[in-house]
């Protein structure tokens, strides 16, 4: 397997506090790759560097062997780097459908003029992309809420809408930031299923950040563990789960009484 994404020795700091210190890893095509670590370990920061919201102080990001370290955020979506957010970042004032249609933005190829009259190319493109969106809606079982405004929906559904929105961008690499957070068991199971389907049926590579260890262990092909912005372990789920440093990061170094 070739590496789809390569993170090379990145450093990131906020006001003197090192959030990420020399993290490197590779994500292979077609795998589910998880990043774990206690709160504040720098997981989301790594994700933010990969998606370009933060610029790393040092280090490089390679996507399909091209250096994207300094590529603006908006261009990364076109390359196929897509993410979801830890705290829902949906467009609350739009319907679910419009949220998803927005993701098709970069695939729609028409200008202001045809948009003004809403005929010809605009109409054709809208319909074509609507078809794609409907496939995703169908895939994630969102058809019942299609025309609802996002703010009306429950948290679990909103999470799913966010996933759908990401899928509409036809990602090559999908980064999920705590997709299960705040969900009940049932919703978690659904979400896990969707993630597996996305990975297996659509062949999309996934980076998963998740706190629920059961999910991580079951779903991931490989896992990297971070603590204090540093990589402490990388490998198969079982290996990571039994790693000394990981255990201590989660459970504390020793037992003080």
């Amino acid at each position, binding site marked *: 397997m070739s590496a789809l994404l390569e993170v090379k020795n990145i450093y990131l700091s906020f006001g003197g506090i090192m959030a990420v210190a020399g993290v490197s890893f590779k994500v292979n095509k077609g795998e589910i790759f998880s990043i774990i670590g206690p709160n504040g370990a720098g997981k989301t920061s790594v994700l933010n560097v990969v*998606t370009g*919201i933060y610029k790393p102080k040092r280090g490089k990001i390679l996507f399909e062997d091209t250096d994207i370290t300094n590529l603006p*955020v*908006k*261009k*990364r*979506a*076109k390359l196929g780097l*897509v*993410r979801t*957010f830890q705290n829902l*970042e*949906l*467009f*609350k*004032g*739009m*319907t679910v459908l*419009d949220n998803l*249609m*927005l*993701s*098709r*933005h*970069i695939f*729609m190829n*028409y200008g*202001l003029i045809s*948009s*003004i*009259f*809403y005929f010809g190319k*605009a*109409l054709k*493109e*809208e*319909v074509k992309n*609507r*078809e794609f969106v*409907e496939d995703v809606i169908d895939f994630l079982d969102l058809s019942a809420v299609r*025309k609802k405004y996002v703010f009306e929906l429950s948290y679990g559904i909103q999470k799913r809408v966010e996933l759908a*929105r990401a899928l509409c*961008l036809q990602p090559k690499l999908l980064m999920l930031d705590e997709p299960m957070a705040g969900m009940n068991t049932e919703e978690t199971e659904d979400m896990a299923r969707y993630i597996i389907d996305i990975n297996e049926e659509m062949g999309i590579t996934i980076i998963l950040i998740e706190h629920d260890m059961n999910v991580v262990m079951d779903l991931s092909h490989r896992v990297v563990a971070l603590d204090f912005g540093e990589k402490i372990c990388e490998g198969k789920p079982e290996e990571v789960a039994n790693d000394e440093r990981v255990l201590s990061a989660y459970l504390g170094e020793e037992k003080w009484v």
Partner: protein
Amino acid sequence: MNYVNCGNFKTSYAKDAAIYKTVFSKISIYSFLILMLLVPFYANSYILYILNMIFISSIAAVGLNILTGFTGLISLGHGAFIGVGAFATGYLALNYGMNFYFVIPLAALITAIIGIIFGLPSLRLKDLYLSIATLAAQFILEFIFIRAESFTGGVNGMPVAYPTIFGIEINNDFRFYFFAYSFAIVMITIGKNILRTKIGRAFISVRDNYIAAEAMGVDIFKYKLLSFGISSFYAGVAGSLWAYYVQFITPEHFTITVSIQYLSMIIIGGLGSVLGSIFGTIFMVILPEMLRHLVDLLSGVAPFLKQIFPAIREAFYGIVIILFLLFEPEGLARRWNLIKAYWKLWPFSY
């Protein structure tokens, strides 16, 4: 118009994206539009004036709503942009003798360009900072209106000739009604169209969550500028119509008060709603006139009213804005939808 009658199925996505969701609403809208064409044959020039003002203002209000309501960029300089459109009209008509079908698009285009220039700070500024920058735009443009005498006639203002179409001078309220009415319909339809396509969605995404929008591949800066451009284009059209209607423009027509007036229109009507912009305009144009006539009527009973009325009117204006913000923050458009939803199921509304 998000409510869809039950038992109404669509078989294509294109139909699903249509503005009017049902045959019934389509028919009622069209018949209303046609009915409006009959109004001038029955109304006097005062009523026509009010309607003309509503048409002109609603174009500008829709423009401002595109920028402020849909894209989330608060503009305190809309009045000045309307001014740009008006002066461009005056300049083009006076110096090149162009007819309105060249002048209006050209003036609007010029306004759009100016709007984009003053939208440039949006690259770095957000929220409050941006709205303060538009406040600056207002004052700077006012200064330019006064100083650039060769273009604007300076403080003395400039006369604007009547527009003519097929040799007919549009020189009274009656004729202007059809003129303004057709512009209003065209501009509002265009607005609706823009807002239901990818551009409109991109605008809302910038408003709702620009970080996510960027992550979705939306070039937010481009869309902010586009929003400024389109919004100013509308202001330009409105300014142009205003110039043609009033036939004499001076910088004093386009002050900060005008900008604020438009903001209150879209707040009262409903941010992020085209229909709301129109409602807001109707409300704000008619309100002072209604009040005036009311006081005229009442002054027979209580003459002192007439004495303090002017101040009361201003107070009323403030109170209306405040009450709307406190109790109907989503504006008249929402109220309208609620009423519609209620009547749709009437008399079995359970």
